[in-house]
Structures are given as structure tokens and as C-alpha cells.
């Protein structure tokens, strides 16, 4: 257990060092949420349901998810590109622990999106961005990050097997934005898609974060949402474990751990 925690920490710090100079990831965490926030502010500010805090939070979540999504693939693709994936797989520590640590580092960096989007709402547009209930907002945000991290853990193994996955990862970007209700409620989507939202940890996380930031739910309701969020996150991680194992065995059988 102590070894696993040390590996999580070491991998998180390693990943942060690389993310800090990765232009693409910096785009995800700075530029994209900046533009999404500005665009959404312009789109919604003359409408009847405008809440600047909602837009700031929603745009933040898009930045967080995009960073985690793309880095879940880069966490492995980068290792392969550097020639360290085989070394990582060949070590006694399970690869899933290393990737979990890297994604924890990524999650920490994703907080930058919040600062960027806040700056857009408060300084660029001059709105008052306030959190209706800070006491429930903090745990909601933290649990949301756990939910995003757990979902990214499910996608990460795909990069072990298929190198081209990184090129089509965009396909997982917008669906999560929509199904999780980052910038509009899932009522806007066809009802047959609702079950897909309900099984996603980010949906429960976004619900909790929006409710606690914009007001509109008591602690009891939020408690229920947190429980579902944490349970669905745990389910995602439990599913990721055998998935990683399966994918790794396949990669070793196919010989796809190295670049050549």
C-alpha cells in the first residue's frame, strides 16, 4: 500500500513536469476553456436563463475534462514515444498505478481552467461570480474531480493497444460535455440518451457542482448526489482494473508496447 502511494506521488509529479511544457495540454487547460467561456457568455447573456456562475463553472468543467481526456492517452502515448512504456510495464509495479498517479497530476493541473474561466466572467465581462453555497461547493468540486479522474482511467488503456486512438480522442470530448450537462441540462438531449448520462460520474459531479454554485439544492439532495458520484467513480475504477489487465495482455501478445 505504501509503495502504491509513493508511486502515485512520483508519477503525479513526473506528469506535472511534462504537462507544464506540453503546448497541447496547456491549450486544453488555458486556451480552450477561455474561448468556451467567452463564447458561451456571449451566446447566453441576452437569453432568459443566464447565470454567469453557471457559465464559468460549466466552461471550467470542459477544460478539466479535455485535459484529462487527452492526457489519459498521452500518459501512455508519451511513455511509448519516449521508449519508457516497456520499462514501465516490465517493472513490478502494475501499470495502472503509474497511470493513476499521472492522471492525479493532471487533475491537479486542471484547476487552472477554473482560474481562467473565473477571469473571463469576472474581469473580462465584469460579472459578479459568486458561489451560492461554498460549504457544499468544495466537496462537490473535489468529488467531481474524482469522477473525471475515474472516467479518464477507463479511457487510458485504449492508448496501450491502438496508437491511433489519440488521433480520434476528440470523439469522447463533446459527448461528455453534453451527456454530463456541463453547459446545458440534459433535458436538452433526447430522453433515450439519459441512461448514458446517469452512468457517467461526470454527470453527477457536474450536477453537484452546478447545484452548489448556483444554489437550488439542500444538503440532503447533494449528499445523495455525492454518494452516487463516488459509487459510480468506484465502479469506473473497478472496471478499469481488469480492462487494463486485458489490454496489457493483448498488447504484449501483439507486440505494441514499443514504437517499432
Amino acid at each position: 500500500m505504501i509503495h502504491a502511494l509513493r508511486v502515485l506521488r512520483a508519477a503525479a509529479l513526473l506528469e506535472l513536469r511534462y504537462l507544464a511544457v506540453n503546448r497541447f495540454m496547456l491549450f486544453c487547460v488555458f486556451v480552450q476553456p477561455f474561448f468556451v467561456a467567452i463564447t458561451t457568455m456571449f451566446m447566453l447573456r441576452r437569453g432568459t436563463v443566464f447565470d454567469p456562475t453557471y457559465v464559468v463553472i460549466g466552461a471550467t468543467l470542459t477544460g478539466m475534462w479535455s485535459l484529462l481526456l487527452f492526457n489519459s492517452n498521452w500518459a501512455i502515448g508519451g511513455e511509448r514515444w519516449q521508449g519508457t512504456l516497456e520499462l514501465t510495464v516490465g517493472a513490478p509495479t502494475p501499470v495502472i498505478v503509474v497511470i493513476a498517479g499521472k492522471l492525479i497530476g493532471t487533475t491537479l493541473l486542471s484547476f487552472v481552467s477554473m482560474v481562467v474561466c473565473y477571469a473571463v466572467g469576472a474581469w473580462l465581462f465584469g460579472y459578479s461570480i459568486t458561489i451560492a453555497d461554498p460549504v457544499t461547493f468544495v466537496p462537490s468540486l473535489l468529488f467531481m474531480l474524482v469522477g473525471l479522474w475515474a472516467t479518464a482511467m477507463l479511457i487510458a488503456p485504449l492508448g496501450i493497444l491502438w496508437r491511433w486512438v489519440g488521433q480520434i480522442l476528440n470523439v469522447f470530448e463533446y459527448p461528455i460535455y453534453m451527456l454530463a450537462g456541463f453547459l446545458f441540462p440534459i433535458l436538452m438531449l433526447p430522453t433515450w440518451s439519459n441512461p448514458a448520462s446517469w452512468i457517467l460520474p461526470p454527470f453527477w459531479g457536474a450536477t453537484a457542482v452546478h447545484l452548489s454554485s448556483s444554489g437550488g439544492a439542500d444538503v440532503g439532495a447533494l449528499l445523495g448526489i455525492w454518494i452516487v458520484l463516488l459509487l459510480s467513480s468506484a465502479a469506473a475504477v473497478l472496471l478499469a482494473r481488469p480492462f487494463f489487465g486485458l489490454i496489457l495482455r493483448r498488447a504484449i501478445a501483439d507486440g505494441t508496447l514499443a514504437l517499432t
Partner: protein
Amino acid sequence: MNAIALENAGRVYRVTTGFVRRHAKEIQAVDGLSFEVARGELFGMLGPNGAGKTTTIKMLTTLLRPTSGRVVVAGFDVARNADRIRPLIGFAFGGERGLYYRLNGRDNLRYFAELYRLEPSRINPRVEELLDLVSLRDRADERVEGYSRGMKQRLHLARMLLHDPNILFLDEPTIGLDPVGARELRETIRELHRRGKTILLTTHYMFEADELCDRIVVIGKGRLLASGTPRELKALVRDLTVVEIEVFGATPALIDQVRALDFVDSVAVEQRELRQLLRVQTPIADEALPRLLASLGGLAVGRASVREATLEDAYVRLVGKTE
């Protein structure tokens, strides 16, 4: 119990080409390979590029599954018990990659020490000990992206030894190193051997295998061509003489004609700018040179010499490759 054993090990790669209609092709990288390595032995695997050395070593280090046969390391099957093998072995594939270039040497080792589950209190002393062993302590705080090829190779070695494994795999450890660096690395390998480590190294330098190894296997196109001690392999060419002739403008057709001569065992060709150096192995000693010169027709000839066959000639004969 042997440290390493391969029984008819094989590895087939499936490659697909084409966009809409995809065609699958099978490449047999390793074919029915069998050999053993005893504990404490320094064992060499020789072969030209594409012979299957790297594929074999990846199977041994649990990074590639054999598609046929059995591969056993430290008593465990690589296909079924990879998790039990990994803590017991160390491997270094070398080269420019395989290190975290944004970290310095010391931090690279510390990171891998965590992956190899070293006790926290042991990590720093072990890292310093290995930096001394590979003479990198004074450069340990510099980022790996600034390291020379030789420094990276030494760092690979240090990383491999972090958890003090008894079985080591080295894939072409001295390739790309300058002569001094290569000599230092070979000395380190000898030292590890003296400490009782079982070492399997791959190389395509015959003299290196001759100098270091207790036993050698020669592989070509994924198959075992020969095995034995360096002395036993030299014996394969004991009765042969090597005639070296420098020619200008030898065509492949002419070389094939020379190969077909009844007194010629094998011909290796080395291209040197506008010249070709033919190394002809033949059982007939003194008569060989005039007969070969006669067979070359009016071709311009530079220097020519006759000598005894070496281990390298044995290797060339076995792989039968034109270089």
C-alpha cells in the same frame, strides 16, 4: 535449474497493410529457438540486424508473448507468470530513448526505484551507489536530454541494477559508443559477471562476444545457427583460410560466380566507397589466391592477402550475409 531456458520458442508478427481492403501478412521473427543459460553464466546472442535478437530478448523480459514454444526465466513461464519474473530481472535496451529526458539522471533513478519498490530508506543510498558505479555522479543533476549517448547508456545500466536483480538482459549495450566508452561498459559487464550475475547480452560484434561470453548462440532469420563456447565456434572455421581481395567494380553477378566456384566456401562483400573488399573463405590455402584472381577476369584489383580464419569469419560463414 537453469536461469533461462527456451524450448522451440517462436514469435510471429501479423502486419496489416492497405486502407479499405486490409491485407494481413505474417512475419516469423523467431522460429523454433532453443537454448539454456546456466546461473552465473555470461551468455551472448549474436546475429545480424533483423535476426530476431531483440524479439527474443523482449520475450525473455515478458514484454512480448511467444506465439509458440516455451520461454522460462528464473523457473517461471513468461506467458503465465510475468508478474513473478519482473522483480527478479533487470533489462537495458539502451539507445537514445528509454529515459525521462526532462528529469536529471538522479531523478530518473529515483523514479524507477519507486517502480521497483525499493524500500524508501534504501532509495537514496542505492541511487548514489549506482551513480558511482557508472561514473555519472558528477553529471547526475543535469537533465538527461543533455546527456551524450554513452552517458545515457550508463544510466540505463544503473537503472537496470536498482533492485539488484540476479538475471540481467542487455540488448546491444555498446552500440553507438565510442571505443573508450564501449571498453568501460564491457568492464562493468565483466564486474557484474564476477559478482555472480547471470547475464544474457545481444550483440552483432563478434569480438565483443568472444571477449566477454562464456557461451554464444548465433541466430539468423529467427533460427539457431550455432551454439557453443567461442573456442568451439572458432573450430567451425579451423580448416579454412580467408583470402581478402580488394576489387573495383564487382557486380553482384560476378560475386555470385565467385560464390559458385567449387573451392569457395563463402564470400562476404564489404563496400568501401568505389571498392569492394571480398572476403573469401576456402579450404585450399596457397592455391586459392591465384585461382580467385583468374576468376575475376579483367577486373581491376587492389591489395590482396591470405590469413587464418577468425571467430568473425565463423560468424560471417554462419549468417551467410552480404554486408
